[in-house]
């Protein structure tokens, strides 16, 4: 049996289980929600918290399964279907998914979308790409800051820009941000833990989706947070409307 068939079988089973898991999970969450169950005692509150943690663990597992596919791009393409998606719907999804984490850091996500256009791409990989970008933004953004998300429609593409606050990345380091294991010196001195894989994986997914990805650290408008220089960190994505396979 070839490796290709094995991956196909794994994904067939995984996607069934994944859907079953999510349906059951949402059903339990719904039954225990404040709206249906009421505030409940401390035990119920603890269960709600643990359910949210379980969801995060599952989502992380799901992300790593997809990212592990990137070792073989051909295999990644074969095991995923291209479909239409709308960027605002995907931003809404990630806002919901990371709602609690954003609330803990009092981070707001503000959006400014151009006219709605559908993009034809590998939907699950696009979601993983956004996951990684927003996880990176959340990690480095100071408390009570804002993540700005905007789109501008072009002839055959959409420019998606995600701007958040982060430690100033020197211009000499910008090009290396998507290098495996690389961390900018400011990121290291900010004491935020990391291994330099997040933006590297962003770049790999972007390559798979024919998306041009660029990073910009706007060091003109600097400010200090706990003695570390911060500025706007911008991820710019040029997303083709049609994926050229």
């Amino acid at each position, binding site marked *: 049996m*070839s490796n*290709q*068939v094995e*991956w*196909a*079988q794994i*994904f*067939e*089973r*995984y*996607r*069934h289980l*994944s*859907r079953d898991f999510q*349906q059951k999970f949402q059903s339990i969450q719904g039954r225990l929600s404040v709206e249906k169950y009421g505030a409940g005692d401390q035990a119920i509150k603890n269960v709600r918290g643990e359910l949210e943690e379980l969801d995060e663990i599952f989502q992380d597992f799901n992300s790593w399964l997809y990212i592990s596919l990137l070792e073989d791009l051909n*295999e990644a393409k*074969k*095991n*995923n*279907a*291209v*479909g*239409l*998606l*709308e960027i605002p*719907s995907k931003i809404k*999804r990630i806002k919901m998914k990371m709602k609690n984490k954003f609330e803990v850091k009092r981070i707001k996500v503000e959006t400014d979308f151009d006219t709605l256009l*559908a993009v034809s791409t590998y*939907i*699950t990989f696009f979601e993983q790409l956004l996951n990684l970008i927003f996880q990176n933004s959340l990690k480095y953004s100071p408390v009570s800051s804002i993540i700005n998300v905007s789109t501008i429609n072009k002839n055959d593409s959409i420019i998606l820009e995600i701007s958040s606050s982060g430690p100033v990345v020197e211009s000499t380091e910008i090009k290396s941000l998507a290098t495996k294991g690389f961390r900018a010196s400011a990121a290291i001195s900010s004491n935020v833990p990391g291994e330099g894989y997040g933006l590297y994986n962003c770049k790999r997914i972007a390559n798979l989706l024919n998306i041009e990805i660029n990073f910009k650290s706007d060091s003109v408008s600097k400010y200090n947070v706990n003695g570390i220089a911060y500025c706007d960190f911008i991820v710019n994505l040029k997303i083709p409307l049609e994926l050229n396979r």
Partner: protein
Amino acid sequence: MWDKIRINYYKLMSSLRSKAIYPDDIDIDIQAFFAKPSTLKIAVIDDSDFPWVQTLESKGHSVNVFRDYHKTSTKASRKRLQAYDLSSFDVIFCDIEGVGALAYPGSEGIGVIQDLRERNPLHIIVAFTGSPARLLDPKTGKNLTAVDSVFQRDWGVDDFLLNFNSIMKIFLEPKERWKFIRSRLVHLDLSESKIMTAQRAFTQNVLFLKYLGESTNISKNSIQKIILKSEKNVDVRGAVDVAALSVKAINIASSLFIFNSFK
């Protein structure tokens, strides 16, 4: 009397103009011709739970789920392996794993889709799967079957609906309808000249509908009757020589009426 003259005039106009106009250029809002929302008849062949039945039904579509492609309710039917007749449906969703195993061991859903395609050359067939790689030949990477779309099992509801709406356009927009029909005729190996004749028949009927709808006070019901009658009179015998296709091809523009639901 006056109406009859006008109908004949527009029929002649649409016939003449169909020679110079491409379906892409016809600007027509098909929805405007219907009082009720457009709905489709959908068949699902899936051995596990198809998660979007309620979603589709909430949009007014009717959904019939079949656990397998062949009737297996009795011993005799299992022995004869008689396939369900899905010709009255507009869209067919087909799982790849776990269906058609009795008739097509090894290829399962791929075999089902190949058979469906042969029996229903002008139907929309969508593979609904957790393993899109199964649709490809592991050696060559080429598609093993001609599906119109592939829906991944773990897509969210927004993605499912967006992609389903794209399929709906095949029933509502002349441009998308013709693109679909053309691809099916190419797949059936029809010559360019025959496809061109079918294109003219299609364009003529869509134009006829447009003229009647936009330039007359004839009621929607009457327009529908006139168009259906007109389509029956379109001679596409020269255009289509595949027996299974001929009946459907005559109804090319009727398809714009969401024909299965309308009839």
